[in-house]
């Protein structure tokens, strides 16, 4: 357990100068939340780079590479211009959030990671790579290992490898804690962003909601990291569009780039965000360049090593066209199988109840969510797998991936509609001054 706690702390410390290089104002929840996420993403980049450079992963090689990045980010930080600081105010309700995190931690650490997909995909890759001290391309390319979904991005397995390097060997007993760290990081980011728009009470309540949605019950899979990076990315774009804030754009692009390195759904999210931004402003699209720069290496490596992507296997277009006439039935089946149906009904009700003016401000999040849903529907139409099985095994995870940004937006619409319009913007910042 000590090893994973040291790993989480190390990732957060590695991320601090990176956050400050991007955002000199970052303090409190924003600094801590983004620091862990940047540390996690940077560790993926470090291990990927070492592997490409044929430098074996050891604690020493990884530490040296990380320190180089740490120092470079620190130097950039000192050159950055100073600007105003953002802050948040604690609330008694935060104690409930802390209690919730404790409960989730107990669940994630009941025993060694137990999910089938952990030991057949995410954990398997991490453990295999650890043996070699690098990404084992022979393993990924082997026709016998297609069950391990060789084409999936590697951020999460490489994070597990970092923990194993600190531990001095493979141990899956406490790896569930990385998912907790991701959920907490996302909640801290959400808290910081919510605090700019609403009262401490509502910001605190929203934090409780985000930590609940951000914690994936599928312990050990890449869902938790994807929800955290993807959720933070979309919320930062939302913030950037609201405030015209360049710093938020930078955070958004990097978070979305890391999300694309968690799962293929991260690529889908990046595409959905791109479409949503294009619908608002073509000029703003260039702000997403860092996201594509981060996503590109794995796409290139996957192509070079001809790693299979299951949805694109065989005649995907034929399958899609063959299932297209059954779209109403598929939609009906998705509606039947949705997890937390009353939660989604409440979200849709919230969209309808909210004042039109507030609803218009959230177009970006609505378009992203709708586009994500459309992409998932297309995947279901084109999948080479048996459709009912795929829906049963994936739909609850996919809806969980979409939940954070839209819940954040709907909650703030409703909460702010209850308050006088003059209090709405920057309420918490005002209360601190």
């Amino acid at each position: 357990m000590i090893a994973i706690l040291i790993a989480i702390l190390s990732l957060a410390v590695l991320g601090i100068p990176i956050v400050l290089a991007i955002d000199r104002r970052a303090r409190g929840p924003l600094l801590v939340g983004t620091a862990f996420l940047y540390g996690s993403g940077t560790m993926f980049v470090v291990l990927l780079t070492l592997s490409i450079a044929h430098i074996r992963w050891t604690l020493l090689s990884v530490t040296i590479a990380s320190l180089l990045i740490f120092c470079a980010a620190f130097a950039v930080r000192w050159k950055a211009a100073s600007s105003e600081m953002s802050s948040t105010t604690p609330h008694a309700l935060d104690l409930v959030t802390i209690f919730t995190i404790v409960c989730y931690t107990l669940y994630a650490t009941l025993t060694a990671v137990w999910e089938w997909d952990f030991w057949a995909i995410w954990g398997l890759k991490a453990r295999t790579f650890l043996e070699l001290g690098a990404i084992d391309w022979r393993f990924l390319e082997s026709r016998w290992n297609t069950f391990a979904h060789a084409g999936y991005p590697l951020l999460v397995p490489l994070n597990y490898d970092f923990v194993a390097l600190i531990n001095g060997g493979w141990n899956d007993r406490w790896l569930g804690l990385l998912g907790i760290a991701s959920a907490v990081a996302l909640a801290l980011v959400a808290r910081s962003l919510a605090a700019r728009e609403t009262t401490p009470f509502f910001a605190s309540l929203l934090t409780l909601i985000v930590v609940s949605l951000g914690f994936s019950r599928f312990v050990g899979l890449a869902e938790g990291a994807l929800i955290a990076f993807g959720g933070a990315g979309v919320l930062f774009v939302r913030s950037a569009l609201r405030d015209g804030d360049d710093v938020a754009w930078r955070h958004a692009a990097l978070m979305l780039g890391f999300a694309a390195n968690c799962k293929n759904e991260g690529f889908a999210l990046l595409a959905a965000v791109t479409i949503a931004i294009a619908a608002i402003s073509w000029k703003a699209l260039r702000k997403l360049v860092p996201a594509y720069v981060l996503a590109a290496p794995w796409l290139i490596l996957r192509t070079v090593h001809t790693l299979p992507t299951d949805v694109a296997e065989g005649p995907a277009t034929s399958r899609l066209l063959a299932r297209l006439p059954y779209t109403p039935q598929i939609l009906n089946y998705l509606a039947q199988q949705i997890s937390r149906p009353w939660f989604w009904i409440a979200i849709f009700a919230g969209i309808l109840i909210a004042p039109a003016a507030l609803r218009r401000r959230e177009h970006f999040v609505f378009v992203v969510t709708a586009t994500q849903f459309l992409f998932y529907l297309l995947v279901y139409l084109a999948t080479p797998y048996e459709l009912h099985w795929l829906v049963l095994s994936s739909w609850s995870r996919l809806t969980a991936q979409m939940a954070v940004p839209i819940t954040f937006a709907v909650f703030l619409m409703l909460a702010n509609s209850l308050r006088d319009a003059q209090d709405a913007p920057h309420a918490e910042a005002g209360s601190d001054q």
Partner: protein
Amino acid sequence: LTVRRILTILCLAAIVFLTVATRLLQLPFIDRTEAVRTLVRNPDRAWPDYPIFLEGVREHTSPGDSIAIIVPAMKWDGGYSYAYYRASYFLAGREVLPLITEQDARLMQNFRGAKYVAVFGVGLRTPADVVWRGSRGALLRLRPR
């Protein structure tokens, strides 16, 4: 209070309750021993000895070795896929080879090409040296014919 305000309050309350309320919040107050036991047993409930056997195989092989897997269930969806995936995890770093395809076709080239054959829960009538035996199975090295 307008109707919209009442609906807004109800909707906010519903979102909070439906998101936060979960059985996981009971975890600190209940005995978790049974839950842990279930989670530990669940993946290997058919063959509880199988992970112990695979740990033994791991101890007696080296990284890079190729190992074919033989278990009582030699049908892909009848248990072989589980045995193969599970072996891949426990024997990470080795090349684990399946002996049947997803369509249950035999893969004799993997049997002949493997350095070792890990046999669990069944006997194997073929000329082979026993490298290690334990936990209802054996690690065999096939003799050249």
